[in-house]
């Protein structure tokens, strides 16, 4: 039943398929359990364009997930990205970390005809009070690096705050840009809220203009 629900979520996502910031882990922290699934929506504003992302994730087992990201902007759907994160978890006494390798495909669901392949290498670690994520990837003509690092604050009753700092670097045929700014994440049981604001630290990109804002909400089951 839960697999059917997950499939339904992914199918709904498929129906709402723009070129936008393409890569970011879908809820990297969870679900990390067998048969876990989740969905989230994010609204991003960049380049004077507002984009709604519908994202889904299914975890076959902790080492293997499947994710789907579909952008929707200006009344039009864009190119969907399917990825398969393969993770190697390391659990130690008071911390957990994982190495990940993620092949991905960007499908021309937005009306084009080009298929793009991608590959990402990532590492994330969390200990009591600290979280860090490093991700380097290549997708289509874009090479990128994402870094999230900061502190977590748990209240002991099922909810936590994460205050992180993000660095996003992109290099593509149109040039390079570097964004950086704060990220605020709130968890309550199986619900995640995430907000981030990144300002331009470097812009040599003919197709990039201005700061980046994102807010999102997701749930895992």
């Amino acid at each position: 039943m839960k697999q059917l629900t997950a499939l339904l979520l992914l199918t709904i996502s498929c129906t709402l398929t723009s070129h936008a910031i393409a890569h970011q882990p879908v809820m990297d922290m969870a679900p990390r359990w067998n048969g876990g699934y989740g969905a989230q929506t994010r609204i991003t504003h960049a380049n004077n364009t507002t984009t709604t992302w519908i994202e889904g994730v299914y975890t076959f087992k902790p080492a293997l997930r499947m994710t789907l990201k579909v952008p929707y902007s200006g009344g039009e759907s864009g190119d969907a990205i399917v990825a398969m994160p393969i993770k190697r978890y390391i659990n130690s006494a008071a911390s957990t970390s994982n190495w990940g390798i993620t092949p991905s495909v960007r499908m021309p669901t937005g009306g084009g005809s080009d298929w793009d392949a991608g590959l990402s290498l990532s590492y994330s670690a969390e200990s009591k009070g600290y979280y860090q994520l490093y991700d380097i990837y290549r997708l289509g003509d874009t090479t990128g690096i994402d870094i999230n690092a900061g502190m977590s604050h748990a209240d002991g009753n099922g909810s936590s705050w994460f205050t992180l700092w993000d660095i996003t670097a992109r290099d593509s045929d149109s040039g390079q840009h570097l964004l950086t700014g704060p990220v605020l994440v709130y968890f309550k049981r199986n619900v995640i809220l995430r907000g981030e604001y990144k300002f331009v630290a470097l812009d040599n990109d003919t197709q990039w203009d201005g700061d980046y804002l994102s807010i999102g909400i997701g749930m895992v089951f």
Partner: protein
Amino acid sequence: MRLKTLVISLFLAQISALIASPVWAKNYQIHVNGIVCEFCAFGVAKKLRKLDFIDPSQFEDGVKVDIENQRVYISIQDDLPLDREAIFVAIKSGGYDPIKMLPMDEVAQ
């Protein structure tokens, strides 16, 4: 005098009951490596709650996760046998590594 005897008898009966059946006898503490995030631990609690011998009247539907100390607490129903292997399998499938499991009365000592 009769009332005093009755109160003392009731008190002694309560003490006897506590000795015979410790409050913690059906509760267990499990040391779980890596369980430092409430959000990530949701799956462990979910898997454990599916075990039919978990007592949902205790803790939070039978399970409590303490990310400060990397411990998981479970409560077992009185009339059902404990399946230690099923508990460890549930935690593993939740994405974490169980290390050891102790009855709470041993932990309390």
